[in-house]
């Protein structure tokens, strides 16, 4: 269903759609396996368009926009299989802008000149993101981090935002990639980019203080990441269904377009329902929440739903394409692979449901 947008929001979406149209499956295919797997100048372009600083308060030279604007841009990024990590960069910039004085990296991160990405996850199933096992030792001057982070989108990153247990509990830290004690080991994904395991051995770090409205900097960034990933997953669903519905209209078998067969029509409707309910959930959450203080029950809920639905939708889209759908030459498989990656990051659907049961108090 149509969204209710302001004219500024509509312009932003159109501009993101244009950026996204210049990407698309063919470009995503060309970037597969490269390191980094995106065009640095396109990331800078996103910076120039203001997207990387869109959540950053205007006092820190950002656009001070909200989650709706973030979701509009990231939905288009997912829809066009954009390779540039706009979402990760934008939420990292938002995190760097916390505290009284923004972190020195903020300006470069907002301009897309230096990519900063979150590195929060410690196990394949996410665990409890608010209780990191990575330790921050405070030897009086510079905190030093020791621990391991997994499934980090490290390609092209100049630095990381890392959750660690500090002297006053869990806190967020910035660590440059080239800091001593930082080791990055990357392996390829089906989707084209690599995921890295980050090993930190007494790596020197800067603490990133929370914004006043947040419960904590770790929680704020975690919930923001869940919403950002959900928005991109929504776009993946949207792109996959557009491709599929178009195919249903033109492909003929038994002398008729296959989209005229009732069983396929009903599958198409189920795809549409999954996409539209995810859309409503995402944008209603976006409209009702401060980017620095998202209701965690809702952040977890939308990541659970978007992760599950995006896998189901992209799988169903392949089925509706028939044999052409499982070839690498056709684009629809790229959407499934993107869904596989994004749905798995920061905890898959089942991991989110586990957290949800706790947050929503279902055991009581």
């Amino acid at each position: 269903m149509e969204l209710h947008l302001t004219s500024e929001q509509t312009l932003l979406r159109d501009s993101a759609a244009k950026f996204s149209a210049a990407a698309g499956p063919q470009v995503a295919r060309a970037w597969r396996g490269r390191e980094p797997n995106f065009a640095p100048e396109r990331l800078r372009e996103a910076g120039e368009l203001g997207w990387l600083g869109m959540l950053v308060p205007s006092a820190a030279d950002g656009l001070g926009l909200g989650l709706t604007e973030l979701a509009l841009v990231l939905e288009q990024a997912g829809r066009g299989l954009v390779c540039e990590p706009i979402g990760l960069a934008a939420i990292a910039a938002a995190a760097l802008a916390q505290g009284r004085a923004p972190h020195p990296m903020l300006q470069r991160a907002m301009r897309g000149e230096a990519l900063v990405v979150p590195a929060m996850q410690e196990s394949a199933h996410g665990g409890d993101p608010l209780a990191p096992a990575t330790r921050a030792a405070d030897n009086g001057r510079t905190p030093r981090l020791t621990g391991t982070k997994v499934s980090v989108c490290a390609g092209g990153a100049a630095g990381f935002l890392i959750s660690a247990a500090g002297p006053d509990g869990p806190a967020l830290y910035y660590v440059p990639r080239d800091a001593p004690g930082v080791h990055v080991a990357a392996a390829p994904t089906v989707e084209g980019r690599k995921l890295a395991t980050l090993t930190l051995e007494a790596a020197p770090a800067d603490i990133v203080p929370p914004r006043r409205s947040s419960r904590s900097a770790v929680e704020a960034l975690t919930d923001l990441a869940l919403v950002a990933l959900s928005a991109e997953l929504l776009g993946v669903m949207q792109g996959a269904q557009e491709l599929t519905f178009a195919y249903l209209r033109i492909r003929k078998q038994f002398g008729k377009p296959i989209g005229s067969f009732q069983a396929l029509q009903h599958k198409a409707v189920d795809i549409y329902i999954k996409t539209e309910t995810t859309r409503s959930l995402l944008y209603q959450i976006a409209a009702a929440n401060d980017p620095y203080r998202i209701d965690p029950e809702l952040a977890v809920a939308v990541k659970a739903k978007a992760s599950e639905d995006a896998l189901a939708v992209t799988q169903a889209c392949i089925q509706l394409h028939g044999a052409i759908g499982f070839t690498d030459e056709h684009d629809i498989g790229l959407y499934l692979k993107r869904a596989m990656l994004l749905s798995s990051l920061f905890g898959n659907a089942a991991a989110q449901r586990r957290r949800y049961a706790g947050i929503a108090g279902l055991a009581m």
Partner: protein
Amino acid sequence: MFRHDSPEEAAFRSAARTWLEANLPMALRGRTNRPPPAELMPWYRTLSGKGWIAPHWPKEYGGMGATLNEQIIMAEELARVGAPQLPAQGLNHIGPILIEFGTAAQKAKHLPPIIAGEVIWAQGYSEPGAGSDLASLATRATLAGDRFTVQGQKIWTTWGHHSHWMFALVRTDPRAEPRHAGISFLLLDLHSPGVTIRPIRTIAGDDEFSEVFFDNVAVPAENLVGKLNDGWRIANALLGHERLGTSNPQFALIALERIKTMARATGVLADPGFRDRLAAASIGVTALLALFNHAVELTNLQRSLGPDASIIKIYGTELLQSLNDLLLEAAGSDAAMANPVATNFGEVDVSTPFLQVRRATIYGGSSEIQRNIVARRVLNLPQ
């Protein structure tokens, strides 16, 4: 969760809550089946006396002229206190239709008794041979002079045997092509000679529905709504609202609470496997709330939902069924008990809501018909 009351809305909510708590009889709260008229209509008239019976009607016809948000607040507060479902065909269907399409005389005659709770209305659309394929309906109304003669049969008439009047679709031109071009919208007094009504008992044990037979029933020509053979358009004009109504997330929220209570009582809430399904169900309800709120926003902006209303019905009713599957699971070997199950957390009716919700994906346009509509009219897939 997604919407916050304005100060005026909050004040309205608070007033409604206080008044409902004070005035809704205890015996009517939390009923799974709709109480019979003798129990239900006094409460209808109490609401009516307060001026709250028709939040969505204009004030000039006895309504509240409430905003959509106020209507939702009212629905939420009624659900919160466990209020029973009122007969809705007058308030939600023929009322708004007459306000839009009725003559001054029709409005004057029929609207006040609806508000007052003096006349209960029934909807006469479905027929034994015309369910999903409503346009094939066969009940004939033949106009001669100043009256129609109606011959035929309606079925699945909600509360037909408790109703005084029916608004019906009848065939007035048997040769029209397409077939729906020969259908008119007629008001019928169910006390007329030649009308026979037979209640239909459902698997849930209630008798929500009836069959209504018309044997040469005389209907004054003035009971025609709109023009002759224009009934299809009139009946469909306000369908989006109906779909929004049947997917009101309040039913899902009540179902969710019922599951939790039962699971607590049988101890299965301690099982993380069950909790995983409960989490999925709860996330589904959250999505329905979002979908509903989204639809309300668009409706508030006077943008018609159009055929997208169908996806709310599909998602809402299928979710309600999966919630009741989970209720059955939570109840374990109490799943098949006919009566409410006594637990440490109060009585929980398991089988009645489970059996009732079978019909949700069938009436008001089955899930299959809704999917056909979405495929053709939203996704533009070929015929």
